[in-house]
C-alpha cells in the first residue's frame, strides 16, 4: 500500500516535471524536493504511531539529534560531489573532539594536563579536522591512491588514536563553551540545529552560485573536461577533502556537547558512516559524483531523523532496533529511487 502511494506520486511528479520542463527553475525545484512525499508519508505514520510525535518538543529533539549527523552529511556530500568518498569522516567525528577535550580537561579527568582554554580547544578541533582532510586529500589526489581504501585505513588509524590517547576512557566535565554548540537552546530551538541549518544553506548557496561550487560539479561530472577548461582540479579536490573533514569535526563537537562527554565509541564504533552515506544517497547525491544538492541531502537527514524517532516512540525492542533501522533505511533508499526518478539511479 505504501509503495503504491509512492508510485502514484512519482507518476504525478513525472507529468508535472515534463509540463514544467520549459521553465528550468520550477522543474529544478520540483526535482530537489523529490523526497517530500516520503517525508509527508512518514509524518503521517509517526502521528498514527504516537500522539507525542506531532509536538514541538519532539521535533526540537529530532532537530538536535540530527544536526550533528547533518553537518557530517554536508561534508560527505561535498566529497561525493567531486567523485570521491571518505569513510574516515566517522573517525574524524570522534577523534577531533577527543583530542580537543583531552587538551582541555584536567589530568584527574584523564586529560593531558595542558588545561587548554576551551576556545583554543575548538580551534584545535578544527585544526585536527583540517589536518586529517589534508592527509586524505594528498594521499588520494597527489598520491593517486584509491579513496575507498585510503579512508578505510585512515578510519581505523584514527579510531585507534581516539582510544589510545585516553586509554579508552570517557572524558566528562567538558567546560561550558566547549559544550555550548551541542547543548544550548534559544527558546525551544537547539543552537546545533540553527548552526546546522546555516551550514546547509551556506554550502547550498556556495554550490549553486560560487565559481568553486560550480567547479565541484564540473569535476564530479567529468574531471578531464574540467581540467581541459582550466579548472585546478587537484587543488579543488584537496580543498573539498579538507572542508569535509572540518565539517565532520564540527559534527563531532555538536555530538560531544549533546551528550556532555566524549566517549571512545563516538563515531567509528557507533558506525555513523552508514547513516551518513544513507542520508546523502537517499537525498539524491550520486556516489559517482557530480549530481546532488543540499536540499536533497537535508531531506535525507530529516528522513533518517524521523525514522529513528518513530522507532523510539514505537517502543521497538532494543534487540531488534538495529535490524529494523537498517531495513527501513534500505526501504527509504528504494522509495527515494522511485520518487526521484532516473536522476537518482546508479548504473
Amino acid at each position, binding site marked *: 500500500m505504501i509503495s503504491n502511494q509512492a508510485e502514484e506520486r512519482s507518476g504525478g511528479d513525472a507529468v508535472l516535471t515534463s509540463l514544467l520542463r*520549459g521553465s*528550468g527553475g520550477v522543474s529544478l525545484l520540483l526535482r530537489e524536493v523529490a523526497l517530500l512525499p516520503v517525508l509527508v508519508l512518514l509524518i503521517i505514520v509517526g502521528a498514527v504511531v504516537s500522539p507525542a510525535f506531532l509536538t514541538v518538543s519532539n521535533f526540537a529533539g529530532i532537530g538536535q539529534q540530527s544536526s550533528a549527523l547533518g553537518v557530517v552529511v554536508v561534508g560527505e556530500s561535498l566529497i561525493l560531489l567531486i567523485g570521491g568518498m571518505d569513510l574516515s569522516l566517522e573517525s574524524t567525528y570522534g577523534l577531533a573532539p577527543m583530542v580537543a577535550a583531552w587538551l582541555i580537561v584536567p589530568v584527574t579527568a584523564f586529560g593531558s594536563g595542558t588545561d587548554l582554554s576551551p576556545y583554543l580547544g575548538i580551534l584545535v578541533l578544527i585544526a585536527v579536522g583540517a589536518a586529517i582532510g589534508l592527509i586524505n586529500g594528498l594521499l588520494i589526489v597527489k598520491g593517486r591512491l584509491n579513496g575507498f581504501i585510503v579512508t578505510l585505513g585512515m578510519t581505523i588509524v584514527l579510531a585507534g588514536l581516539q582510544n589510545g590517547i585516553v586509554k579508552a576512557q570517557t572524558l566528562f566535565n567538558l567546560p561550558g563553551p566547549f559544550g555550548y554548540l551541542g547543548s544550548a537552546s534559544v527558546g525551544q530551538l537547539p543552537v546545533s540545529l540553527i548552526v546546522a541549518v546555516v551550514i546547509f544553506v551556506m554550502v547550498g548557496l556556495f554550490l549553486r*552560485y*560560487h*565559481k*568553486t561550487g*560550480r*567547479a565541484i*560539479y*564540473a569535476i564530479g*561530472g*567529468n574531471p*578531464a*573536461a*574540467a*581540467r*581541459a*577548461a*582550466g*579548472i*585546478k582540479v587537484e587543488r579543488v579536490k584537496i580543498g573539498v577533502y579538507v572542508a569535509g573533514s572540518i565539517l565532520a569535526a564540527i559534527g563531532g563537537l555538536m555530538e560531544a556537547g549533546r551528550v556532555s562527554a566524549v566517549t571512545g565509541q563516538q563515531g567509528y564504533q557507533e558506525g555513523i558512516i552508514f547513516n551518513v552515506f544513507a542520508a546523502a544517497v537517499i537525498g539524491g547525491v550520486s556516489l559517482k559524483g*557530480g*549530481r546532488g544538492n543540499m536540499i536533497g541531502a537535508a531531506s535525507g537527514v530529516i528522513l533518517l531523523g524521523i525514522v529513528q524517532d518513530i522507532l523510539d516512540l514505537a517502543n521497538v525492542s532494543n534487540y531488534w532496533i538495529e535490524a529494523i533501522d537498517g531495513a527501513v533505511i534500505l526501504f527509504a533508499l528504494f522509495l527515494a529511487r522511485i520518487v526521484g526518478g532516473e536522476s537518482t539511479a546508479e548504473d
Partner: protein
Amino acid sequence: MTSSAPVLVEMTGVEKRFGTTRALRGVDLSLSAGQCLGLVGRNGAGKSTIVSVLSGLLDPDAGQVRLGGAPAPRAGDIARWREWIATVFQHSMIAPDLTVAENVFLGNTAAIVSWRDLRARTRDIMRDWGFDIPADALCRDLPVEQLQIVEIARALARGARCVLLDEPTAALERDAVRRLFERVRQLTEGGVAVLYISHHLEEVFEICQQVVVLRDGERVLGAATSELSRDDLIAAMVGGAPTATPGTRRSSSSASSGAGTPVLTVTGLTSQSPAGRLRGVSLDVKAGEVVGITGLLSAGVATLGRVVAGAEPRAGGEVRLHGRTFPSGRTVPSGRRAAAQRLGIGYIPEDRRAEGFVAHLGVAENATMTITGRLADRLGFLTPASRAAAAAPLSTRLSLVSSGPAQPAGELSGGNQQKVTVARTLAHDPALIVAITPTRGVDVASKALLLDSLADVARAGGTGQDAAGVLLCSDELSDLVICDRVIVLVRGEIFAEFTDPPFDRDELIIATEGLSSTADGQEAAE
C-alpha cells in the same frame, strides 16, 4: 537494384519521436544479401536513431521492421536481434582482457566452456571469412581495426548475416582503413549485407554500391553511388546548393602571416607519450596565422597539441607564449593546463566526450566554464543569468542549436557538442588556440562552420580583439584548408613544411608517410 538477392532487413515507414523532436519521419530502408549500403546525413539527421532501431535498442513509434521477411522481435530482445543483425559501434564493445576467441563467443557459450572448442571454432570463422587474427591473442594487444574484425566475427559466429558499421573509420589510419575495406568486400562477396554509416563521403563512394541520405529524419535520396557525384550527395544532405568547401579564400590572407608577431615559440620539444612521441620539435605560430600539424596517428600530432596546451607534461624543450602584456614571452609550465589557460592558451581537445564538456551540466555553463572567474563578483559568486548572457553571443556565432542555456550538453547532437567545446575555448579570448581534430565526427556543414570560426579567430581575435594564432593538429587533411602553413610530423619529428596554400592533397599524404616528394611546394625542415 536487382531483386535476385534476398532482402535481409526491411524498414517501412518507420517513425520515432523523442519528446517534440521527430527523429525519424517514415523512413524506408532495405538491405539485401551481398549489398553494401551507405547511410549518410548531417549530425542529428537520424542516423543514430536508425542504428538504435536496427540494433534492437529502440522500438519505432510507427512503421515496421522486418528481418528476413518476418516481423522483427521487440527492442530489448537483444539475443534474437543478434541472430540477424550485429552492430559495430563507434565505441568498442570488446573486453580488452579476454582473448579473441572469448570475445568472438562472448555471451554465446555453453555453461561450461571448452577452451579447445572455442579456439577451434574461432579459427574456423577466421579462415572461412579470410581474416587473419590469431584466436588466442589478447584483445588488448590488437590494433583498433582488428578489434572491429573481432566484433564482426562475433556477429558472424551467431549466424548474423547483416552488419551495421557505425563510423568504423573514425579512429583508423589510412592503411587500416584500406584493410578494413578489403574485409568489408570479402563480407559482401560472401553474401553478408553491410550498412555503412560515415561522414566521409569518399569512403561511401569507394565501398558502397547504394547510398541513402537522411535529412531531418527523412529519407531524401536513395540511389546507386555510380550515378551520383560528391556534390549531389552534399546537396541532398544539406538540402540546398552544395556549400563551398571551407577555406578556399584562405590563401588570399596569407600575406598577414608574414607581418604578425609570434604568439607561440616551441623549441626542442620532446615527449614520451605512448600515444605518439615527440623528438625535438621546434616551431612558431604568429598572430593571425593558422598553422596546421598533420601526420599519421602515432606521429605525435595530438601529443604536440596536448603538450603545448599544458594538458600533458613534456619531457624536455620549451613552450613560450607571447602575450600583449608580455611580448618577450613567458614559459608555459609543463603539464599544467590551468596555468597555460591563464597565460592565454585555448584548448579544443581531441575527444570531446572525454574532455570537451560535462554531460549533465547546461550548455551555457559548459560554454562559460573557462571564464567563471571573469563572470564572478569579488567574492567568487556568479548567477546562471550571467552565464547565459555570456554564452548567448557565442551560441549565435557558432549556430549552436539547443533548447536553451540550461539544456544538458550531453543531450545535444555530436556537432553541437563540439560547438559547445569550441565556445568554451573562444570564451576566454585566447592568444593561441590549440585545436586537435576539431571536426572529427562532425557533419559537413558544421565542419565548415567550425573551421571558419577558427580562421576568424586567427584574423580578428576571439571577440573582435587582437588576432590570435591557431595551432591546428589534425590527421584529417580536409581540416588543413584553413591553414597558412602545414607542418608534417613523422615519428615525432618535423619532416616537411608546406608554406604555400592551397596544399596539394597527394603531396601531403606522401609526406605523412615519410616519403620525399619531387614537388616544389615542399622544403625540408631545419
